[in-house]
């Protein structure tokens, strides 16, 4: 029941641990989400909305392209 597999992967956990002192709960509070959502996003189980993605990137102090990666393989142009 998880829905379609997303092509978007993220590096939130790596950046959060390497470049900030934020816990998952603190990051969740900063971006207006629940800790469970942050856990799910970091676990690559949930793709956040565009706004939430920008909030996370802004809170981590990184450009959004550094935090989130799109896998275009298999995409027909």
């Amino acid at each position, binding site marked *: *029941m*998880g*829905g379609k597999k997303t092509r978007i992967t993220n590096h939130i956990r790596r950046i959060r641990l390497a470049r900030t002192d934020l816990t998952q709960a603190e990051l969740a*509070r900063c971006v*207006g*989400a*629940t*800790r*469970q*959502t942050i*856990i*799910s996003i970091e676990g690559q*189980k*949930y793709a*956040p*909305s565009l706004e*939430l993605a920008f909030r996370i990137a802004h809170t981590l102090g990184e450009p959004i392209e550094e935090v989130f990666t799109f896998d275009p393989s298999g995409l027909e142009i």
Partner: protein
Amino acid sequence: MTLIEDMSETQRQAWVTLIVDVFVFVYFLKNIMTAGSIDTLSASGLSKLMIGVIITTIILHAVIASVFAMRKQGEDEDIKDERDIRIERKGATFGFYFLAVFMNIIIGHIVIQNGLDNLPNATEGYAGPFDYTNTSHLVFALTCAAFIGDIIKNSVMVLAYRGE
């Protein structure tokens, strides 16, 4: 499976509501089966059972909603975020789809039961699983539809939280 302390409030509420609905529905079915069938239950017996089940369901749902509302008041931040809303919406969609299909099946049966008997060469009527001209059968079918729809909604939510 997610630990209870790691669950969001919406996820916990879905679990509690699901468990309560299953218990009440099983109690309802058990009372019907104890009597034998829906036909052997007297009109007053069925009325008492229906009123009891409905009141129990309303009270339990109200208590669950109140408890979770009181818990939210103690929190500083908004507990429901976009993921909770998305999963709630998915559960509501599946619950609605089930109810829509079930209602159409009931309507189809009523039309067939009434329509076939009126055909010029009809020798015998359509005998489905329920006789919807019988109020007891209709009430039983609609009650089952309501309970199963709610169980499906909360089940979908619980499964969606596991997958997302």
